C-alpha cells in the first residue's frame, strides 16, 4: 500500500501542479517533491533489512492476460527510490528565478518522478514496461520545449533510439511471458522461472534484446551516440533528470530483470558484454580529454562511469553488484551536482566553453570548493562517494577477468585527467573576460549544492548505510542463479 501511496501522491501532485497559480508553480512542485522525499525517507528509515519485497500491493489489472498491478520495494529498489526522491526536489529547486518555467515544466518533472519510481518498484513485467516507456514522455517534452537550438532533431533521435531498444525488450518480455505456465503471467518470479527454463541459445538471444533496451538507456558503448547530444542540448533540469536518475533505469533493469531472468544468456555473453562496457570506459574517457563544452565533457564522463557500472554488473558477483548499486547512487548525486554547477557557470558567464573560462575560484571560492568536492567524488577519491563504488566495481570485474579489471581500473587515471583539466581550466588561473564579474553562490544555489556535498561525503565515509540495505536482496539475487 505504501508503494502505491507513493505513486498516487506523486500523480496527484503532478496533476494539481497544472492548476496552481502560475507564480506558485515552482514552490508547489518543490514542496510536493519534498513531501514525497519525506515519505520515502520514512520508508527508508523503517525499512527492514531483508531480502524480501516489502510494501507489496497486488491488483489484477488485465485479468485475461495475467497482467497485474504489482508493486513492491526491496533493498535494491528502496535505494533507487530514495535517489529519485532525494534528487527531484533539488532538481526542481535548481530552476533559477531569472529563467522561470511554466507550471507544465514542473508537472512533467513530477510526472517523470512518478514514472521513475514506478520503474523501480514494479514487480510485474508489463507494468515495468509501461512505466519504463511513460518515463520517456515527460523528458521528451522537457527537452523539446526547453532545450537548446538543435533540440528537435536531437530529442527525436533520442526518443526513437530509446524506444527502439524498449520495443525489442517488449518482444523479449512477451516471449518470456508466453513461456510461463498456462494462465500466463507477467509476475516477476514467474518470468524468472520462465527465463531460466529456456535453453541457453534462446536465453542468449533474449539477452541481446534486453540489452538493447537497457544498453541504450544507460548508455553503453557503442549505443551511446544519442547521449552527448541530448545531454548537451537538454535544459539543465532535463540533463539532471536524464543523467541523475533516468540512466539508472537501464542499470536497474539489468540487475532486476535481465540477468536474473537469463542466467544462461549472461553466462554466454558476459565476456563480450564486459569487454564492451570496459571499452566504453576507456573510449568515452579518452574522448572527454579534449571536449571543450563542459556539458558534453560530463556527458562523456557519464558514459565512462556507467560503463564501469555495467562492467561490474556483468561480472555478476557480490562486489560488482553492490558496487554497481552504490555507484548508481553516487553517480546520480555527483552528476546532478556537476550539471548544476555548469548551469551556474553558464547563467553567469553565458558560456560553457571551457577555454573561455578560468579564475572562477578567485571570484567564487564557495563554488570552487563545492565543485572540487563533487569532482573528487566523481574521480573516486577515498572518503568521497565515488570510491566505494569504483573500488567494489573494479574488484568485481577483476575477479571475473583480471585483464578486464585492470583495464577498467584505468578509469581512475583517465577520470582524474579530464576532471582536473576541466577544474583547472574553469576554476583556476587568471580570470577571463567572461568570468571577471563572477558572483559566488546564492542562497538558492547553496540550498541545492549543500545536500549534494553532504551526500558525497556521507556515502564516502559510511557506504554501509546503503550497502547493508541492498545486501540481502543482492545475495538473494546471486543465490538465485
Amino acid at each position: 500500500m505504501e508503494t502505491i501511496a507513493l505513486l498516487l501522491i506523486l500523480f496527484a501532485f503532478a496533476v494539481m501542479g497544472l492548476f496552481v497559480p502560475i507564480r506558485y508553480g515552482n514552490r508547489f512542485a518543490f514542496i510536493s517533491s519534498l513531501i514525497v522525499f519525506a515519505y520515502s525517507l520514512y520508508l527508508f528509515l523503517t525499512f527492514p533489512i531483508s531480502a524480501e519485497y516489502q510494501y507489496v500491493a497486488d491488483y489484477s489489472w488485465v485479468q485475461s492476460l495475467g497482467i497485474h498491478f504489482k508493486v513492491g520495494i526491496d533493498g535494491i529498489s528502496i535505494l533507487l527510490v530514495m535517489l529519485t526522491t532525494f534528487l527531484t526536489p533539488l532538481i526542481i529547486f535548481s530552476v533559477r528565478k531569472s529563467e522561470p518555467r511554466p507550471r507544465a515544466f514542473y508537472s512533467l518533472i513530477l510526472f517523470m518522478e512518478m514514472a521513475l519510481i514506478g520503474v523501480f518498484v514494479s514487480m510485474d513485467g508489463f507494468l515495468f514496461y509501461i512505466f519504463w516507456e511513460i518515463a520517456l514522455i515527460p523528458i521528451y517534452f522537457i527537452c523539446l520545449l526547453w532545450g537548446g537550438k538543435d533540440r528537435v532533431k536531437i530529442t527525436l533521435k533520442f526518443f526513437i533510439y530509446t524506444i527502439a531498444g524498449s520495443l525489442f525488450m517488449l518482444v523479449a518480455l512477451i516471449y518470456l511471458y508466453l513461456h510461463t505456465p498456462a494462465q500466463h503471467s507477467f509476475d516477476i518470479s514467474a518470468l524468472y522461472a520462465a527465463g531460466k527454463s529456456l535453453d541457453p541459445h534462446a536465453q542468449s538471444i533474449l539477452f541481446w534484446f534486453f540489452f538493447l533496451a537497457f544498453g541504450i538507456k544507460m548508455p553503453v558503448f557503442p549505443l551511446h551516440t544519442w547521449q552527448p547530444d541530448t545531454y548537451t542540448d537538454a535544459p539543465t533540469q532535463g540533463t539532471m533528470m536524464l543523467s541523475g536518475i533516468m540512466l539508472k533505469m537501464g542499470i536497474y533493469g539489468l540487475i532486476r530483470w535481465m540477468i536474473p531472468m537469463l542466467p544462461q544468456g549472461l553466462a554466454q555473453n558476459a565476456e563480450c558484454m564486459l569487454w564492451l562496457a570496459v571499452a566504453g570506459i576507456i573510449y568515452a574517457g579518452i574522448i572527454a580529454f579534449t571536449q571543450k563544452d563542459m556539458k558534453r565533457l560530463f556527458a562523456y564522463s557519464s558514459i565512462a562511469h556507467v560503463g564501469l557500472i555495467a562492467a561490474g554488473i556483468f561480472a555478476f558477483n557480490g562486489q560488482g553488484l553492490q558496487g554497481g548499486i552504490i555507484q548508481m547512487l553516487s553517480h546520480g548525486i555527483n552528476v546532478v551536482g556537476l550539471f548544476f554547477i555548469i548551469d551556474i557557470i553558464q547563467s553567469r558567464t553565458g558560456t560553457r566553453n571551457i577555454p573561455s573560462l578560468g579564475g572562477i575560484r578567485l571570484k567564487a571560492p564557495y563554488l570552487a570548493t563545492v565543485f572540487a568536492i563533487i569532482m573528487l567524488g566523481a574521480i573516486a577519491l577515498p572518503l568521497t562517494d565515488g570510491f566505494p563504488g569504483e573500488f567494489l566495481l573494479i574488484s568485481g570485474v577483476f575477479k571475473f577477468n583480471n585483464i578486464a579489471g585492470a583495464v577498467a581500473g584505468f578509469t581512475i587515471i583517465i577520470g582524474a585527467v579530464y576532471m582536473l583539466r576541466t577544474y583547472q581550466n574553469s576554476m583556476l588561473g587568471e580570470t577571463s573576460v567572461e568570468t571577471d564579474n563572477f558572483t559566488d553562490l546564492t542562497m538558492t544555489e547553496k540550498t541545492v549544492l549543500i545536500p549534494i556535498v553532504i551526500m558525497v561525503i556521507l556515502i564516502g565515509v559510511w557506504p554501509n548505510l546503503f550497502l547493508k540495505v541492498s545486501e540481502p536482496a543482492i545475495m538473494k539475487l546471486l543465490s538465485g542463479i
Partner: protein
Amino acid sequence: MNTLLILSALGVIALFAEIFRFRKGLFPLILLGLAAAFIFTANQYNHPHVFFGMMNFDNYAVIFSCSILVIAFLWFMMAKNYFLQETSVTDHFSLILFSLVGAVVMVSFSNLTMLFLGIEILSVSVYVLAASDKSNVMSNESGFKYFLMGSFATGFLLFGITLIYGVTGSFDLATIHTQLTTTNEKGLVLAGILLLLVGLSFKSSLAPFHFWAPDVYEGAPTTVTTYMATVVKTAAFAAFFRLFSTCFTAAGNWSDILWWMVVLTLFIGNVSAVRQKSLKRLLAYSSVAHAGYIAIAIVSMSATSASAIFYYTLTYSISSITAFTILFIVSRYKGSKDISAFEGMSKANPLLAFAMTVAMLSLAGIPPTAGFFAKYYVFLTAINHGNTLLVLLAVIAALIGIYYYFRVIIAMYFKPEQQLVPIQVGPLHRTVLIITTVLTLLLGLFPNLVLGWI
C-alpha cells in the same frame, strides 16, 4: 437484426427528411437512433441469434456492431457541421446510415451472399460520399478512383466466392468449412481463397492493393476520410477475420502470402508517410500501416486474434477520430491540411494540442495510450503463434511510425507560432475530442474494460 432494422429505418427517414423539412430534428434523431441500435445490439450479447442461416448475431458480431455504432455516433457528432453546410445533408446522412447497415452486415454474415452484399452496400455508399464534394476535382478524383478500383476488386472477390461455391456447392460458412476439409479440388479452393484474400485485402488496404487508399483518403472530404479510416476499416477487418477464421483455417496455405503482404504493408505504409507534408495524406499512409498491424493478428490466427483485432480497430478508430477532427478544425480555420498548419498550436490551443498529442502517441503506440496496448496485444498474439520474426519487423516499422507521428507533435510544440489567435472549437467537436481523448487514455490504462467481452 434489430440493429439493421433501426439503421435502415433511420436511413429511410433521413432520405425523406428533406421532403418533410425535418432537417433540424434529424441530427438528434439519428443520434437517438444510433443509441437505440446500440442498446438493442448490446442486449443480444450472449444471446446468439441466427437469421435464416444468412446472418449470425453471435458475440463477435455484437461486439463489432457495438464498436461500429459507437464510432459512428462519434463520427456523426464530428461531421454534423460539415454536412449541415451542404445542401444535400439528408442524402449524405442517409448514405452513411445505409453504409452502416452494410458494415453491420459485414460483421455478422454467415453466408457469402451476405458478405458480398454487405461489402457492396458499404462500398457503394462510400464511393458516392468520397465524391460528394461535387465542385472539388480532388473529391471527384478520389471518388472515381475509389469506385474504379473498388469495383475492379469486387470482380476478384466475386470470382473467389464463385470458385469456393463451385467446390463446396454452398455459400454457407459452416458448410463451406466442412466441405473444404474433405474436398479434393485443392487447386480451385486455393485459387478461390486467394482471390477472396485479394478482395478483402483491397478493402482493408493491404499492400499491394493499397494504392487507392492514400489518394482516396486525401481527396475525399475530411469527414468521409474519417469514416473510411474508422468504420470502413473496422468492418473490413471484422469481415476479413470472420470469413477466414470460420472457413479457411484448415484449408489451403494462405497465411504465408498474407505474411508477406503484411510486411509489405507495414513498410510501405510507414515509410511512405515519412516524407508527407500533408497531414491528411500522412494519416492515410498511417492508416495503411495500421492495416498491416491489424493483419498481423489474422496471419497469426489464434484464440486471441479476434479480441486483438477488435481492440486494435476500436482504439485505432478512436484515435483517428481525434486526429481527423482536429485536422478538420484546423484545416477549416487555416485553409491548409499541411503539418505546418499545426505550428504553434500548443501556445494558442493547448488543450487541442494535448488531445492531438495523445492521439499521435496512441497511433505511434506509446504507453499509456490505447494504441500501445493494441500493438502489444497484436504482438502477443503473433509471438504466441510463432510469428516472432514478423513482430520484429513490425517493431522496426513502428519505429519509423514514431518518427512521422512525432513530426506533428514537434510542429505543435516547437515551431514558432504563426498565429496566436486561438481556434474556436464548437461544442460538438469539443465533446467528441474529450470523449475520444479520455477513451484513448482510459482504454490504454484499463484495457480490461473492453477486452473481457470478446
